[in-house]
């Protein structure tokens, strides 16, 4: 990512002259919104759609096992969620009234882990949390993303939008410049997508592993030589909420396959 951004920043900096003021920032037109999977080559897309060979399902399988396995102290997830959690992932991040905070799917799962199972929260990017998140998100496969950004979530959404539109790093680039204003253009070996989160946790061929959306966001921040935020940081959760609202209409692909 660092190498890649180095080459490209020159073109982009000259190509983009967007301001960071919120008012006149261009947005994706509703009819243009597409998942990053449309920019994959046909083999990679076929691999994503192959529910046997898609390696992301190795994590989904483990998540399924964890879901029905009772932890030391409390009941198994399946005891309380007998019918599974179909459709839930498409509505996250979401405001949680009990704690008065916006949680992403990982955060919501950990919430149950702590309060319902009396177990310590799983650490972000641990195999357990990735697996169970992939399993829960996969239950929303094909469901259109539909988050609620009104009411108490509004302020958090706005924080996320600001993060998206603010230039950062040594390259002084914003998410907006790459993913809203230059999507569809080539960035070295890659085609810039619109930067949606609908495939995550996703299997990146570069990682040779499943990874969370926050891992991807850290890669993008590192790519412009900005300091990435820690996994699970509330600012990334806010950004995630903004991304989800911006992805309205496209559907969940977890586990996505990405380059």
């Amino acid at each position, binding site marked *: 990512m660092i190498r890649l951004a180095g080459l490209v920043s020159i073109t982009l900096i000259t190509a983009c002259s967007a301001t960071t003021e919120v008012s006149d920032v261009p947005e994706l037109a509703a009819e243009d919104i597409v998942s990053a999977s449309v920019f994959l080559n046909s083999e990679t897309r076929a691999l994503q759609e192959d529910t046997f*060979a898609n*390696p992301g399902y190795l994590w989904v399988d483990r998540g399924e096992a964890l879901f029905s396995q009772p932890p030391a102290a409390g009941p198994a997830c399946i005891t309380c969620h007998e019918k599974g959690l179909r459709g839930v992932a498409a509505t996250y991040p979401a405001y949680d009234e009990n704690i008065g905070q916006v949680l992403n799917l990982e955060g919501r799962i950990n919430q149950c882990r702590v309060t319902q199972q009396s177990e310590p929260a799983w650490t972000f990017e641990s195999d357990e949390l990735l697996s169970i998140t992939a399993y829960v998100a996969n239950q929303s496969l094909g469901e259109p993303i539909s988050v609620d950004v009104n009411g108490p979530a509004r302020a958090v959404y706005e924080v996320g939008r600001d993060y998206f539109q603010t230039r950062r790093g040594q390259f002084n680039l914003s998410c907006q410049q790459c993913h809203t204003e230059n999507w569809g253009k080539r960035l070295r070996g890659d085609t810039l997508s619109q930067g949606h989160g609908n495939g995550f946790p996703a299997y990146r061929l570069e990682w040779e*592993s499943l990874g969370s959306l926050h891992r991807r966001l850290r890669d993008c921040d590192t790519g412009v030589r900005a300091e990435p935020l820690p996994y699970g940081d509330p600012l990334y959760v806010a950004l995630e909420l903004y991304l989800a609202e911006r992805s309205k209409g496209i559907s969940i692909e977890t586990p996505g396959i990405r380059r």
Partner: protein
Amino acid sequence: MTSIRLAVPETAIAGEIIEVKALIRHPMESGHRRGSRGEVIERDIITRFECLYLGEQVFAADFHPGIAANPLLTFYVRASRSGDLEFTWTDQHGAIWSEASSLTVS
């Protein structure tokens, strides 16, 4: 912690050629990469895969560094009699993972 996925038909007609797929979760660390502090990441790979049908070897493969993580194998077997297909993966340290599936031939 590993997971294995097998795709083997449950039934076949005698003489039929069936497609078999086997996927295992493994890092297949080549031993050629370095970590963020410049240290060599030690090699950790599966070195051997075997598939037995009715106790007889029908497919085997030697793995080397350079094979991607989470290797997927697809191969073909001629169905003869009902029985088990057994799959084993062995890593460089001799650790073994195995899984079986049964095939009914009519």
